[in-house]
């Protein structure tokens, strides 16, 4: 029974109870109030997903990636149909984007949808995982990837009329250095300095080789904002961000709606020479409740929504009259062990716990059966970096082998936790207090406890405290998400770096070989060679067992079927963009079918 069915089921007893109570005068007040677990539904996965139509032919072709879950099409294709101007999109987001300062504020998927409708990046990711120029036109490096020279696009202006040129990038740099996000991005990219080497040319000098530097320019570091406005009123920028993007801020009413309207002076055209964008406006509305967000789409209150929750994807699959765009990204759910603390400093314990992690059951508890694949590495099968060897190496559920591994530790007189041989090990398992995470945590607890070798204590902290505990090493077995759809180096490097040098090495584990492999991957831009290097790191992850995995994170954009162009947008060089990763939509070529 899908969500709407559940609601009917909810409503009918309510009405009936009112009638019965009215007729019988029953004072028990028996109502449907118990039936609040509306998310705990099951439903058949249908193929009602948006493949966005057929190949558009001559506009950059298409890249069809393999479907990752049965009956789910995750292809990125150029959409057919006559593009038309006009129309307004109302987009229901899962949260408000409180910060719009790219140099300062952390920006998740809801925020990216708003921010990148107004601001653009120097580079963007293509459908095949490579990076192509957007506000840049070209980027080249020296042989050892320590000096990068980038040419900028001419004829681009900011919303306030200021020109975009090399001086813009130079002026942005001190603002970026002063901000939380900007400084972190500079550090991650290994950027040492930059200078304008021409009116439209920038030269970046890095402290160490970084072949993935173009990927950094597709992130925070390459997000172009108007530096004079930012310097003049940094706080005001949150309410009135100024970029070069296809839409201009019209109204910012935090927690209610953010309205952006077409930038009449936008520089980009479609392959037929029509000026972009097609839409008149986009209204972004934060609707945190998953159920009412979907109801808002079904009722026409909004005509587009996104979700990062598997339960909502399942409910949306069962709904009529909407089109779904599903994405199975690299983002990998699961957790980590703090290897600085016994008994997690012993690989026998970590491996044993991993062998007793029933991923299928955990995914089911998370509501992801038929939606999310069990993860085996930091790349989903859609990624060019996914390898079969890494998938085969990951320890799959083998309860007996897990018991054997932990028993070996327990019986060891020199066990690291200081307990006597034969005593149970203590595991504190912590997750944020999300209902589905709690259910998943209970599944893990049952299996681990069922071994008769593990005392499990469950703890829950709010998201911010949960993160803070990891940052401050106050964690043990800790729920976490790994990886992203950016270049692998951005996610992997901080985790394999020495713990004393990297606050993001939350497991506090150092494998010299993994660290060196990650460094080597920054010294080549050959995808096959890099895939091989990252495969070796994934094999080490499986061997070291510092993480446990559940499934990859499925995301969804659901729309009124008249809304087109979400899938298969193009970069300025005519190559196909990376679609709608993690429910982030590129609005440049979105149109409403008349």
């Amino acid at each position: 029974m899908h969500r709407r069915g559940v609601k009917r089921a909810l409503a009918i007893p309510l009405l009936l109870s009112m009638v019965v109570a009215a007729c019988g005068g029953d004072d028990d007040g028996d109502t449907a109030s118990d039936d609040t677990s509306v998310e705990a539904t099951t439903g058949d996965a249908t193929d009602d997903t948006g493949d966005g139509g057929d190949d558009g032919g001559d506009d950059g072709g298409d890249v069809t990636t393999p479907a990752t879950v049965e009956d789910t099409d995750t292809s990125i294709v150029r959409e057919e149909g006559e593009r038309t101007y006009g129309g307004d999109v109302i987009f229901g987001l899962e949260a408000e984007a409180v910060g719009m300062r790219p140099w300062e504020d952390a920006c998740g998927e809801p925020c990216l949808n708003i921010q990148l409708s107004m601001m653009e990046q120097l580079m963007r990711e293509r459908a095949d995982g490579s990076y192509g120029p957007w506000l840049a036109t070209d980027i080249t490096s020296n042989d050892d990837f320590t000096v990068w020279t980038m040419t900028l696009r001419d004829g681009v202006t900011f919303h306030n009329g200021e020109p975009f040129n090399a001086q813009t990038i130079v002026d942005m740099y001190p603002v970026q250095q002063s901000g939380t996000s900007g400084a972190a991005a500079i550090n991650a990219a290994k950027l040492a300095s930059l200078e304008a080497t021409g009116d439209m040319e920038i030269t970046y000098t890095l402290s160490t080789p970084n072949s993935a530097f173009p990927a950094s320019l597709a992130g925070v570091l390459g997000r172009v904002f108007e530096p004079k406005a930012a310097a003049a009123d940094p706080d005001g920028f949150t309410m009135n961000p100024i970029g070069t993007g296809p839409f201009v801020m019209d109204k910012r009413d935090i927690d209610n709606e953010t309205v952006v309207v077409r930038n009449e002076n936008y520089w980009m055209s479609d392959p037929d020479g029509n000026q972009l964008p097609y839409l008149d406006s986009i209204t972004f509305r934060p609707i945190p409740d998953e159920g009412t967000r979907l109801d808002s789409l079904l009722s026409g209150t909004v005509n587009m929504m996104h979700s990062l929750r598997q339960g909502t994807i399942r409910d949306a699959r069962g709904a009529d009259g909407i089109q779904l765009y599903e994405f199975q990204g690299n983002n990998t759910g699961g957790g980590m062990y703090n290897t600085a603390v016994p008994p997690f400093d012993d690989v026998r314990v970590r491996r044993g716990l991993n062998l007793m992690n029933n991923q299928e059951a955990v995914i089911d508890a998370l509501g992801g059966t038929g939606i999310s694949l069990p993860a085996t590495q930091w790349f989903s099968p859609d990624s060019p970096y996914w390898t079969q060897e890494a998938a085969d190496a990951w320890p799959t559920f083998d309860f007996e082998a897990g018991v054997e591994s932990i028993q070996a530790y327990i019986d060891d007189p020199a066990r690291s936790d200081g307990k006597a041989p034969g005593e149970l090990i203590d595991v504190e398992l912590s997750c944020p207090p999300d209902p589905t995470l709690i259910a998943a945590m209970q599944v893990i607890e049952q299996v681990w406890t069922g071994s008769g070798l593990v005392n499990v204590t469950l703890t829950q902290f709010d998201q911010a405290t949960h993160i803070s505990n990891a940052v401050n090493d106050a964690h043990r077995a800790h729920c976490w998400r790994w990886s992203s759809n950016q270049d692998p180096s951005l996610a992997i490097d901080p985790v394999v770096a020495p713990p004393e040098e990297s606050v993001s090495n939350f497991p506090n584990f150092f494998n010299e070989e993994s660290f060196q492999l990650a460094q080597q991957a920054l010294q080549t831009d050959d995808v096959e060679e890099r895939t091989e290097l990252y495969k070796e790191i994934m094999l080490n992850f499986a061997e070291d067992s510092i993480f446990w995995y559940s499934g990859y994170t499925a995301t969804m954009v659901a729309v009124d079927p008249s809304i087109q162009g979400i899938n298969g947008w193009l970069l300025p060089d005519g190559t196909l963009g990376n679609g709608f990763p993690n429910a982030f939509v590129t609005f440049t070529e979105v149109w409403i079918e008349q």
Partner: protein
Amino acid sequence: MARVIATRLLRLVATLLAVTFLTFSMLELLPGDPVDTLLPPDANRTEELVAQIRAELNLDDPFFVRYFSWLGDFVRGDLGKSYITGQTVADTIADRLPITLQLAMMSIGMALLIAVPLGILGAYKQGKWPDTVTSAGVQVALSVPNFIFGIFLIWLMAVQLQWLPATGWNRLTDQGLVANLKTSVLPASALALSQLAVFSRLVRSDMIATLQENYVLTARSKGLPDKYILFRHALRPSSLSLMTIVGINFGALLGGTVIIETMFAVPGLGFRLINAINSRDILVIQGITVFIATAYVVINTVVDLLYSALDPRIRRS
């Protein structure tokens, strides 16, 4: 009366001091350095930034020095500034308060509009079928949590009938009354249900007691019409406890709309508070909490004073 007012105001000040003290202590009670609490976990924690925050919040001063300094700022309306939105907390509250106030007033208004006639009917027809039916309905209304009723309303009015938007908020000042009512009626109705039940029960029981009073029996024996007796003689004395509960509920609603505001995506105080909690925007949490607590205490004091003014027996006691 002056003594009553003075006593009430003294109590008000004492309560407010306790409320502000506890709210201010929140930052101290959290483990670790307050700077860690204020900074996002992934922040670039430079020495300059830490020093700047310590200086802004006077974190190097003793606790009570900081408390009284903060209290002084609070009295002047300076509750600090959000480290995330850049907005002052006072502006944030000023922006959201009208929305939450409107929801609270609408829901109480809707509840009273239905509850008072139902209560009178129940009392007038005590033990007969209209009383039985309304009592049963009230019992159901009391048993249904407001968010469940909210889900039902969205399903019926937005998804099935498509008469009203499921979520969102049209500001009265921007989009006019009709557009505003379209977005406010569902959340207000969801909030009204349980209040309606409480109000109705209260009116019914008070009215039954009043109708037993000698002066009502005298009025009846004089042949006055029932309608006249109910509305002229019985309703006013039966409304005193209703007025108290309305006041208490109104204060509670200022901070009690969190779930409904979140469900219907209404940008009121509760929605901002929950977002601030999620993003650990401590100064906003502090500011809104202390504001809501203050409003609650002040409203209850005003209700107490009105109660005394309306009923001379209480004033004299």
